[in-house]
């Protein structure tokens, strides 16, 4: 089968330029932070990195599909917070925990479905559709809670979700399991390949018989479900539903996908790239905090590193192609 995601793969080593340069970047980040930041290399901190990666990663897997399909989703942060709030209310009302989780996932899927349907059937650009959700969901969550945490009291199932297993937090395990699932979907299923076809040339995909509208709705439904899952994990981590949480998460997610080499114009990208992108974004966040850099300056540094990483990546791929030609 072609394409294990990036078509450039067939070009041998040069085809892996994207992944290789990201790996090199990760090594550099490790070396720099290990040498300069106290406590960076401790086991505890490495687990922290993994936990933080899960917050971005789970949403980023779905965002990769969305961006490959030629769309964009900016509603992630508010969606995560909104679901955590609604789930907290469900639990307060005495809905059994597992059914409440199922309802939360369903809610996420339905919200994503709204954005997808607006895109697929009403030709509303996905940026606008999800921007609307971004604003509305945050607003509803804040209105319902007055911006205060919604406590859920003691809940053994929810607590278990935040208890480490052999030292590793369940959210990290879940992230890695889902990575495998999304890798499989993107490479080996008719749906996954249809996502590439729709992003690469929607007209050709339609004329070949692909249900383009369904693919577009589905990627957003999957995005919603993954945001809801992140909401559940957020609830378990904080012990409450939080309308103000996950602020700006959507930008970390999009940055991770883009740093991972997925083209914003659609049709091109890979899950492995996104995995490395998530690591880059998480490492930067973690290292800068440990270095004790002023939080405002942290944002500046992060912005510079993201743009620099994508720029270096584009240059590396260009050089590799030129050498081939």
């Amino acid at each position, binding site marked *: *089968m*072609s*394409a294990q995601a990036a*078509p450039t793969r*067939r070009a041998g080593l040069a085809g892996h330029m994207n992944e290789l340069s990201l790996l090199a970047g990760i090594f550099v980040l490790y070396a720099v932070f290990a040498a300069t930041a106290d406590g960076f290399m401790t086991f505890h901190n490495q687990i922290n990195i993994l936990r933080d990666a899960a917050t971005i990663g789970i949403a980023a897997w779905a965002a990769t599909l969305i961006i490959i399909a030629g769309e964009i989703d900016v509603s992630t942060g508010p969606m995560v917070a909104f679901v955590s709030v609604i789930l907290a209310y469900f639990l307060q009302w005495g809905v059994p925990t597992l059914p409440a989780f199922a309802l939360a996932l369903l809610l996420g899927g339905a919200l994503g479905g709204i954005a997808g349907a607006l895109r697929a059937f009403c030709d509303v650009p996905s940026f606008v559709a999800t921007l609307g959700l971004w604003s509305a969901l945050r607003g509803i969550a804040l209105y319902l809670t007055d911006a205060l945490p919604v406590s859920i009291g003691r809940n053994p199932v929810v607590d278990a979700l935040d208890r480490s297993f052999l030292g590793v937090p369940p959210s990290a395990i879940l992230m890695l399991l889902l990575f495998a699932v999304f890798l499989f979907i993107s490479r*080996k*299923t*008719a*749906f996954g*390949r*249809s996502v*590439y*076809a729709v992003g*690469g*040339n929607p*007209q*050709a*995909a*339609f*004329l*070949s*018989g*692909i*249900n383009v509208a369904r693919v577009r709705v589905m990627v957003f439904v999957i995005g919603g479900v993954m945001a809801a899952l992140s909401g559940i994990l957020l609830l378990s981590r904080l012990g409450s539903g939080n309308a103000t949480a996950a602020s700006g998460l959507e930008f970390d997610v999009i940055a991770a996908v883009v740093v991972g080499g997925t083209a914003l114009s659609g*049709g*091109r990208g890979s899950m492995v790239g996104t995995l490395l992108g998530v690591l880059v974004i998480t490492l930067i966040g973690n290292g800068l905090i440990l270095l004790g850099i002023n939080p405002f300056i942290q944002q500046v540094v992060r912005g510079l590193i993201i743009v620099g990483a994508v720029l270096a990546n584009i240059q590396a791929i260009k050089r590799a192609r030129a050498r081939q030609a």
Partner: protein
Amino acid sequence: MTDFTPDTRPVIARLTGCSKRYPGVIALSDADFELRAGEVRALLGKNGAGKSTMIRLLTGAETPDTGLVTIGDTPLRDAGSGRAAEAFGLGVRVVYQELSLVMDLSIAENLFLGRWPRQGGVIRHKVMYAEAQAALARLGVTLSPALPVSALSPAERQLVEIARVLIGSPKLVILDEPTSSLAEAEANKVLAAVRRIAAEGIAVIYVSHRMNEIRQIADSVTVMRDGRIIETVPASGADTREIVRLMLGAHMEEQARIQPGHPGAVVLEVQNIALAPKLADISFTLRAGEVLGIAGLLGSGRTELLQAIMGIARPQSGEIRVDGQPVTGASYRAMLRRGFGFTPESRKEAGIVPMLGVDENTVVTDFAAVSLRGRLLSRILSAPRIAAATRRVIDRLQIKTARTDTPIGTLSGGNQQKVVIGRWVHAGSRVLLLDEPTRGVDVEAKAQIYRIIRELAAENCAVIFVSSEVEELPLVCDRVLVLRDRRIAEEMTAPNIDQDRLLAACLTAA
């Protein structure tokens, strides 16, 4: 030259002994051409006859290998990128087929695009509107210059396009099939504008194949063939059969002509289909094992007919039946489920997914056939089965590709086209609608595509083959319908499909 009375008008454009070759082709060979002020000259010829090359020499887009291009009294000298500016400075203007207007800007803004009259960076709207009004008035157009182009009809947009080249002082205006996308009533507005331009003393080259129009506005007709200027005849007396003879030349009787076959059951019936403004009252049937050609000029509604059948465009009236069952109003995907397949005219925009491999571009029409067996696994693709299915299509259609997963964007046009057809072979389609499958394809690939189509027909596939090249229709088709003036103007059946008669039928009523 067949000017009988001595013409005293000054010569505006002249080619003297111009030749131009590209690798492997002689695009223009020893061309002599002369055009006088106020003259309207029609330029006729098949694809590849050398019309575009001649136009490109006149506009300075190309430099001839030998010979001289003279505009007014000045020969073009620059051999590089300055040549086009030189020709522009001497007053050569072209209006191309594809409209180049910005839809959401006003008529006036489009007329002065990038050269808006301004003062300190601010556009002087009053001046711009006044000048735009004047430019439009030269064509007899009374539209308000403040109107957005998106609010105009296709003919009005074409007029704006023409008005744009009239700004400044053009000496020679070249119009490349300006009416091909217009219905007849609309086209008349453009013809009226052309008459006005000529009356101002501007020389006009008018590329078109609509004989009625040519007789109405052109003084004379220059026919080109195989890179040569064959003859220039007065337009008023031009006989269509004579023009066809000049365009096609003496040609060998094809050996490989199709013999009348024994087609099977009727698979498709089209009854009184109308799709404004391109089609009215179209009826025909298609049988299994039959290749039905659709001929017609650019803009004659060939593509629209296929789109109406496939459910991409919705006809205003009429009925479509498949295997005797009405399917009028069925969706595109429903037509695919009935065993139809469609390849679009523009391979790049609507045919291929360039970044994906040949394999995925092939199996995309039927993922189920290359999935794992078993109900639960049926959405999971099987790499070996994809490779095997792709290999079958590659072998059968003789597609040249290094590997099954080579990105299709790196293949030649002919091989891309074979993949686009091959995906319907993979899907097992029994009715294939091919819109210009040989456009932009080399000679060898063309022959292979003809062979593939005949093989599919032999296996009882029904094929509709749309082509603008009349030479190839007799080689492939059992029957040919000619579209003209929104209707089926003529029908020919093998072995009596004759390219001269086909072309004549495309151009004008017999």
